[in-house]
């Protein structure tokens, strides 16, 4: 899909948007498996600007994690491969970098936060070591300074007695605490981009809220840009500035939070919003979208949502809809929005 012009996006901390921190264009990722080739990501484009949170939402298997792995240069190869597209980080093309060059960016300029804090930390290494090893890999910082920095980060993410706790092992922390540590680890090198892949899914609700607040607080303090991957629209509603909706390896609608929540244009986005409990719709029964996403081994030629779409037309099945620019910040891929279909 074409890129909207985000210059007028109402983003916190931003003066005038110039170059995005991250620019992804026509990204395609495939996995060769015994059963055939999975087209996991099929031409994804988006931008992330300084200090904003872009949420990527969509059902399980739509390619959210693969997109983030591709940005990090962490697609397992084989079987995976970036078959097309560009990933520009501050104007620098990442897809053509060597393994070593990519490694220098990973963890230093772009950090990642994983879903399950119970498994993301190494059970046999002390927390302090896990916090400091990244920064010691990327810089020539002394071990004392690295520890100081670790204490500072532990404080930032709200862990009491950081100096003592650095000497402990992961099993001595609760799930919420561990996720705070994972976040602290991601922040150690003061990255410009943070990719959080379902950072709260594994946590219980009260802890979830605390972690989300922590994200907001960190963003205010550090100005880091965040890509938040989730299928929880509640999380999105809380902290996203903009939202990209993914379906079957494509972004089918993107807009500001306001636009996506109040003027959704794509039938899939509408369905997604209906399937979520909302405060303003209290009492109304939930309507989950019926059916399942298409097989990514042989994705359909036309709109991937055809089989589940209540408004599907003949053209939908055969030809992929083009991107319709709804506002400067709002794009959607659906034949219903096409000038030609409206006539």
């Amino acid at each position: 899909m074409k890129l909207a012009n985000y210059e007028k996006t109402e983003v916190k901390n931003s003066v005038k948007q110039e170059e995005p921190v991250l620019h992804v264009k026509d990204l395609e990722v495939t996995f060769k498996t015994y059963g055939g080739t999975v087209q996991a990501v099929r031409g994804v484009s988006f931008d992330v600007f300084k200090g904003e949170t872009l949420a990527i939402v969509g059902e399980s298997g739509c390619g959210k994690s693969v997109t983030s792995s591709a940005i990090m240069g962490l697609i397992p190869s084989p079987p995976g491969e970036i078959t097309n597209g560009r990933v520009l980080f501050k104007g620098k093309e990442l897809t053509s970098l060597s393994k070593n060059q990519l490694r220098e960016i990973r963890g230093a300029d772009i950090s990642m936060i994983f879903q399950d804090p119970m498994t993301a930390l190494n059970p046999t290494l002390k927390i302090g070591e896990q916090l400091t090893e990244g920064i010691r890999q990327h810089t020539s910082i002394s071990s004392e300074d690295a520890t100081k920095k670790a204490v500072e980060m532990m404080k930032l993410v709200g862990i009491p007695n950081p100096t003592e706790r650095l000497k402990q092992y992961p099993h001595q922390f609760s799930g919420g605490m561990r996720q705070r540590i994972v976040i602290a680890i991601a922040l150690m090198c003061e990255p410009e981009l943070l990719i959080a892949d379902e950072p709260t899914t594994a946590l219980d609700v009260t802890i979830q809220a605390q972690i989300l607040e922590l994200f907001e607080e960190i963003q205010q303090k550090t100005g880091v840009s965040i890509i938040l991957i989730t299928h929880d629209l509640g999380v999105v509603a809380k902290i996203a500035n903009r939202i990209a909706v993914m379906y079957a390896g494509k972004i089918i609608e993107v807009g500001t939070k306001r636009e996506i929540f109040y003027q959704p244009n794509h039938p899939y986005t509408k369905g997604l919003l209906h399937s979520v409990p909302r405060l303003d719709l209290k009492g109304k029964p939930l309507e989950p979208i019926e059916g399942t996403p298409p097989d990514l081994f042989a994705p359909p030629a036309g709109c991937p949502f055809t089989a589940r779409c209540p408004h599907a037309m003949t053209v939908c099945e055969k030809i992929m809809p083009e991107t319709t620019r709804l506002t400067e910040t709002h794009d959607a891929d659906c034949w219903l929005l096409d000038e030609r279909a409206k006539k």
Partner: protein
Amino acid sequence: MARYIVKRFFIMIITVLVIATLTFFLMHSIPGSPFNQERGTSEAVQANLEAFYGLDEPLYVQYGMYLKSIVTFDFGPSIKNPNQTVNDLLSRGFPISFELGIITILVALISGVTLGIIAALRHNGVIDYLAMTFAVLGISVPNFVLATLVIQQFAVNWSILPAATWSSSAHMVLPTLALATGPMAIIARLTRSSMLEVLTQDYIKMARAKGLTPMKIILKHALKNAMMPVVTILGTLVAAILTGTFVIEKIFAIPGMGKYFVESINGRDYPVIMGTTVFYSSILVFMLFLVDVAYSLLDPRIKLNAKGGE
């Protein structure tokens, strides 16, 4: 920790006593005596000898004497070589067996783990298939067969290594090779599978996301976790190696405990059988204890405590 060690120590003593008791009654249930007529000793002489070694006493008295000898660790003289005590034999033979055992364990551990890591990193590649084919062979060929094969190749056909005895480091190569191959193969396979599993863990993805070098990821993050199953079977392997030395020593004419042990069983040399059994079971039980300690050092989640578990 201290309470755990004390408790563990008592369990170790009981284990050794049980093994010793079983050996005692098994041994006495086998027909035969150290002094049989084939040797041409007259009945009178034989009775005298049996009286001298206390073998004419009822079994429970003999058992009592035996328990006393365990506690004092004094098994008296050998019956077959009366001018040597069991302790003499042990102090002469055991250092050599121990040397062979330790070298074998180190070789098996280091090469097995290295091979396993390489195979895991080259998962489904040529090296992986070669290493695992080799491992299957190593596991299925018994060490005494391997011993004759390596003697034939290296000592007889190529004449590059000595075939027997234990007098220089060159002499140590073939016995070690014969004895270490099996355990090495087991360790290699286990390391490989456990490494492959660990490499899919989230904390490895996280280490990659931190931008660590592949070397650091393997050595620091993966290896320690992958070693846990290996440590678990190490106790059994050490037992297999220590007893395996008996057979290998016999083949390579190494003057370790193996020679005395095999001879003592053939000759019903009760004091030597009992002495070596008690000695070896004590060592094994202690090794198993060391393995548990190593385990708790590797995995901080495991705390050794008097309740015996995690």
